[in-house]
């Protein structure tokens, strides 16, 4: 290629990339602009939205929760529009200190509940649902004793485009949908610390019953805290993503990436798998090339001299079997039928299979290469007194090797990709690594695309190397 053409090609490539970047930037900008918050809440509107929300919260779950909500009062102090579609409400609240009340009586209530069920059933197994129900009733009865406490919180309110299905905390107000988000801290403050009491009771192991202390075995402890009783665990604490579409897409991508590769160091499955894949490919390619050359030379020798009848027949049978069956079946047969009973491990089995497989294809490539070397070369070698093997070794094979090197490299690339079937016999290669991540995270996109991208990058690098190699070979001898 002329330098001028190269320059032109580079310019076009840069242009295409620039175009993609510009289009993406425009889309993101338009997107951001489109979803920019245009609705300003007034304080009284915010107040109404909050009271509606509170009305939605615990209804079905418990009477106590209703009691708490009845005693909770919000005052919206200020409203601030967020960057995107988010409104932040700064609220003063007044509520009852349920946590204090609960801590004061919990052992007593629990002992009562336990004693009641123990006397009924004579078992130390307690029905946790019934204990919770009992404690809920006790709490409701004492609710008037609870102290009043106050504080201030920020509550995030989101405008929504569409109402998500089954979401309890979506409010319609003045023709706009809002979603309320309370952080765990906010929940905790407003509802008297009921979120933090979850798991509290399991610490109570010894209680007094009829004057004697009774150990409650761990399995009998009540694992769920009070937050359950009041249905607060149903309250979504997952902050909705109100970002523009492409930004949230990017965020999702990052989350997905984190989940699939970073969390629990799952990327090591891919890294180790890649190393295994490269090892299998390299080893089997080396063996395959060796085998291929031997087979090719046997075939050519038979074609040219008529000697080596039996080896030639063996090679022919080998070639037609390998080329006539799928590599996956070959792998399964070689491992499960032949090598596993012989006590050979998975990795060497895979290497042997792929070596046998690529050897057959290499043989045909090399045979073509040897045939393409001018007969005059053999005659020249023989006329100098070199014997057939010397002529092959010093004169024909080096030339054939040069001629077929690009094809061999392509065969190597094919082998790299074909080695992905190694996972059928449980070799932890790159494909297997991706599938393992997939089976842990249940996501399809990330692990599969990642595996594909890694194969692709390696193949691209190899292709580039082959091109450089070809260019250098052409330069040689000129």
């Amino acid at each position, binding site marked *: 290629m002329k330098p001028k053409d190269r320059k032109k090609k580079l310019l076009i490539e840069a242009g295409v990339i620039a175009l993609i970047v510009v289009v993406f930037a425009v889309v993101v900008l338009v997107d951001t602009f489109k979803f920019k918050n245009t609705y300003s809440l007034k304080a009284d509107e915010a107040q109404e939205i909050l009271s509606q929300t509170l009305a939605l919260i615990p209804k079905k779950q418990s009477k106590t929760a209703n009691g708490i909500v009845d005693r909770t009062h919000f005052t919206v102090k200020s409203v601030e529009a967020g960057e995107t579609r988010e409104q932040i409400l700064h609220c003063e609240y007044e509520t009852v200190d349920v946590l204090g009340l609960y801590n004061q009586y919990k052992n007593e209530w629990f002992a009562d509940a336990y004693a009641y069920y123990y006397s009924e059933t004579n078992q130390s197994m307690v029905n946790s649902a019934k204990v919770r129900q009992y404690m809920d009733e006790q709490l409701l009865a004492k609710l008037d004793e609870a102290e009043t406490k106050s504080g201030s919180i920020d509550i995030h309110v989101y405008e929504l485009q569409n109402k998500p299905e089954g979401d309890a905390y979506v409010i319609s107000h003045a023709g706009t949908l809002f979603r309320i988000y309370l952080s765990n801290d906010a929940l905790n403050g407003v509802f008297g610390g009921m979120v933090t009491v979850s798991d509290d009771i399991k610490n109570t192991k010894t209680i007094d019953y009829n004057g004697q202390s009774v150990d409650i075995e761990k399995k009998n402890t009540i694992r769920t805290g009070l937050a359950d009783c009041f249905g607060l665990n149903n309250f979504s604490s997952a902050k909705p993503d109100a970002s523009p579409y492409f930004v949230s897409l990017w965020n999702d991508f990052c989350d997905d990436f984190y989940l699939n590769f970073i969390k629990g160091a799952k990327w090591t499955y891919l890294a180790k798998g890649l190393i295994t894949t490269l090892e299998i490919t390299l080893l089997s390619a080396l063996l395959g090339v060796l085998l291929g050359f031997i087979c090719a030379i046997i075939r050519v020798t038979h074609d040219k001299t008529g000697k080596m009848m039996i080896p030639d027949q063996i090679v022919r049978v080998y070639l037609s079997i390998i080329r006539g069956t799928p590599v996956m079946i070959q792998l399964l047969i070689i491992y499960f039928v032949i090598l596993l009973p012989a006590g050979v491990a998975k990795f060497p089995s895979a290497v042997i299979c792929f070596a046998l497989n690529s050897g057959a294809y290499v043989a045909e490539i090399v045979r073509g290469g040897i045939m393409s070397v001018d007969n005059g070369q053999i005659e020249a*070698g023989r*006329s*100098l*007194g070199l014997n057939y093997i010397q002529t092959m070794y010093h004169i024909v094979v080096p030339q054939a090797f*040069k001629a077929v090197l690009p094809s061999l490299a392509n065969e190597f690339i094919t082998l790299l990709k074909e080695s992905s079937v190694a996972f059928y016999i449980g070799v932890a290669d790159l494909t297997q690594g991706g599938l393992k991540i997939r089976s842990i995270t249940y996501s399809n996109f990330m692990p599969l695309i990642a595996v594909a991208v890694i194969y692709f990058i390696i193949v691209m690098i190899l292709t580039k190397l082959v091109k450089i190699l070809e260019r250098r070979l052409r330069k040689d*001898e*000129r």
Partner: protein
Amino acid sequence: MNDNIMIQVDDLKKHYLDGKVKALDGVSVSIYKGDVVAIIGPSGSGKSTLLRSLNLLEEPTDGHIYFEGVDITDKKVNINVHRQKMGMVFQQFNLFPHMTVLKNMTLAPVKLLKISETQAKERAMKLLERVGLADRAGAYPAQLSGGQKQRVAIMRALCMQPTVMLFDEPTSALDPEMVGEVLDVMKELALGGMTMAVVTHEMGFAREVANRVIFMENGKIVEEGSPSEIFDHPKSERLQSFLAKVL
């Protein structure tokens, strides 16, 4: 057998397609030490086949070839040993393209004559100097002109120190202006006393350098004699008409 006979060919036959094509049809010829034999004839007359049979690049169907008294058509004979003493030069040069000129020349001597790499290089450089190609020792064949290639090919054969040189139309693939340089080398070789068999279309060379000329047609030797007998007093009608065309 006469000690002076280098190669004795006895009723040599080469048939293709179960005898339907007879490339050589009973050829007998003797090449003596110091002989320069030119083999001429129309294309398809079997002259190249005859030459290539001399070192068994073509396996004859029938007949015998004695080289330095040994029947090399005998299956038990290791032909490789005898080929070392028979240099061959091809129409298409057949240099090894993946080796430098020097390597082309030293490969066989190092492998077969068991001389050291250095000795072989010395020998090769001496030969290259003789033909004025010493400065091209490190070049690859593709970097040489046709005439240079053929001279290197001749030197490659000579590097084995053969007792006889076989030339198979050595100038046919050359541009006309390069024919001279190759013929000069061959002439020098002949003057040095080398036994040579040359298949050629260069009648001038045959007349000037050869001491014997063989005219072949249809796989048979039609006429044989000194250059003056062949070129000045051709007996057969076929030779007369051939010479009328080529001279």
